[in-house]
């Protein structure tokens, strides 16, 4: 048969359907380019008496450029520096191939020591204002106000929440000192580091509650492992009911009324649930193998855990209401420390390949696995609350560091932290 005829037979229905049913040609675009969005933040006007302690536009600009998603142009390259909408000449910005422009002004409010920034986001391509907003904050804490603006701008352009105001908790031990253990947290750029707890004995596995006000962790201060929860606003702290053997790996339930953790009071490690109101443990898994490292699903109806019941460490998921356990990972002989992404559709875990430990992500429905990192000793992944970034502990030579990668594997970043051992990162939720 003539090839043209075959082509026709294949092509005809497509065109026929598309033109006859709708009377119009339909063209489907399924792919785009991965170029960063070009953004310009014109210096924010400052209408206050006291000079500004930092430049808001600098903070926003470096925030947005952090993970390769945005390309922010420098002030030196700008042809004009508008502060008001009527001062914007779109031509200046389309010449620079800018997609979005942010302008704004800071002014004093009636409250003492507080200020507000009125800002607008302009779509340079379509020559229009797409968003106007006002952010209020304290004059002393301009940085957090700027991070807040970054979050809003990110959300408006990228459609998912920005995480520039979130925090990262981690365990740190300074080798040079007496070897104290610290539970700390810092901003996602490593700044504003704060100590939550100092102890002579090890601290492990911090986990933020979903409201961001509490943190759970394991402390060996009593000579044995015990799970504590600490209120980060009042500083109050509470030890959970101590059981014999291991008490480890706490993670919060989505509503914050329960914790899920590992106890070995029955002889071998199993997963238990802790009711914070009734102060009691409820057994969730019962198997002679080791069950450990649980993580509660975002909806709270399931949890993931690591078990060696098949002979090697693999990840399992338990449906709480149906009381069923299902094995999730089948690739390789070591898969552990799983954490759900915020949409609950995938999980991130530690996967061993050719003897090296990497961070990988698996889609729960399709089972598709993508290995994201190529370093050797990657451990304890934690996911940003917008589901876009993964932070994990790894080694740079002999030095412990916190390193990160976007969930699509495209951009790497690292968290500059203070010296010494750094491990067990835990990303905070979005603060409301």
């Amino acid at each position, binding site marked *: 048969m003539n090839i043209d005829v075959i082509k*026709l037979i294949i*092509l*005809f229905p497509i*065109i026929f359907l598309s033109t006859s049913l709708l009377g*119009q*040609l*339909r*063209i*489907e*675009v*399924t*792919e*785009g*380019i991965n*170029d*960063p*969005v070009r953004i310009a933040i014109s210096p924010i006007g400052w209408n206050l008496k006291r000079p500004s302690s930092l430049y808001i536009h600098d903070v926003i600009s470096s925030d947005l450029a952090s993970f390769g998603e945005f390309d922010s142009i420098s002030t030196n390259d700008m042809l004009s520096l508008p502060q008001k909408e009527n001062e914007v000449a779109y031509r200046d910005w389309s010449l620079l191939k800018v*997609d979005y422009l942010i302008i704004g002004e800071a002014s004093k409010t009636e409250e003492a020591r507080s200020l507000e920034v009125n800002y607008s986001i302009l779509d340079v*391509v*379509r020559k229009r*204002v*797409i*968003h*106007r*907003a*006002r*952010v*209020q*904050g*304290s004059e002393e804490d301009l940085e*957090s106000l700027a991070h807040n603006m970054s979050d*809003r701008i990110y959300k*408006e*352009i*990228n*459609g*998912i929440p920005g995480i520039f105001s979130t*925090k990262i908790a981690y365990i740190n031990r300074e080798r040079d000192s007496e070897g104290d253990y610290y539970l700390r947290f810092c901003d996602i750029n490593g700044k504003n580091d*704060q*100590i*939550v*707890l*100092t*102890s*002579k*004995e090890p601290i492990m596995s911090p986990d933020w509650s979903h409201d*961001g*006000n509490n943190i759970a962790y394991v*402390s060996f*201060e*009593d*000579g*044995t492992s015990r799970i504590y929860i600490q209120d*980060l*606003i*009042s*500083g109050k*702290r509470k030890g959970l009911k101590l059981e014999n053997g291991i008490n480890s790996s706490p993670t919060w339930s989505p509503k914050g009324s329960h914790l899920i953790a590992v106890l070995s009071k029955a002889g071998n490690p199993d997963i238990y649930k802790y009711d914070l109101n009734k102060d009691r443990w409820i057994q969730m898994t019962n198997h002679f193998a080791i069950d450990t490292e649980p993580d509660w699903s975002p909806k709270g109806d399931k949890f993931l855990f690591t078990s060696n019941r098949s002979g090697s460490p693999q990840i399992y998921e338990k449906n709480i209401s149906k009381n069923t356990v299902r094995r999730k990972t089948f690739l390789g002989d070591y898969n552990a420390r799983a954490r759900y992404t915020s949409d609950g559709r995938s999980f991130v875990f530690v996967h061993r390949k050719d003897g090296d430990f990497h961070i990988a992500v698996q889609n729960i429905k399709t089972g598709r696995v993508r290995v994201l990192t190529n370093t050797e000793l990657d451990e304890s992944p934690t996911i940003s609350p917008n589901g*876009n970034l993964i932070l994990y502990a790894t080694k740079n030579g002999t030095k412990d560091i916190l390193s990160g990668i976007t969930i699509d594997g495209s951009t790497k970043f690292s968290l500059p932290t203070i010296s010494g051992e750094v491990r067990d990162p835990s990303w905070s939720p979005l*603060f409301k």
Partner: protein
Amino acid sequence: MINYYSGFFISLLLHLGLLFSFSNYFSIDFLSYETNITSIPAYVVYENNLKIVEKPLSTKNKYIEVTKEKNILEETKDVSSILEKLELETEIGILGISNQDLGTDLEKILFYSSLIREQIMLNWKKPKSSKLGMQAEFIISLVPTGEIIEIEIKKRSGDEAFDRSALQAINKVNRFYDLQMPRKMFDENFRKFIVIFSPKE
């Protein structure tokens, strides 16, 4: 005398060894009494063992008030230039220019469609919120020079950032290149057509 001392010392060592090994074998724990003192908390034994920092997390409230969120998302290009374009159209007269390499009309239409698709694709920066299953449809009106004169929203995806990125992509194209085709084909297919943005991942 020296020999007595050393003999005594060696025999003491041997006896102690026996005692330890027997106690270990029969799991008699009178010698490991130290481990039983677990009731004394560590922080009593060592001073300053633990330091709890109070109120590390300040919750200074930032009041965010979105005063105005204007996003109409309806698109019409500057109408003043359209008339000029229409005049141009007759002058350039694309009639008669045909690409000999292409066979049937259907193949030509597919070819030009893929040209259009490619030019939009190269300008589309998908936002992070884009997901499989999202769909936005736009009706694009062209003049024969390939210039876009109108973009109309037919169907929204429900995600503002997604719709906006699609609109930016079409706007950035501004003019489709290499659409040299007979006038009839242009009028029937490309004067007005639908572009669907639907991510495959």
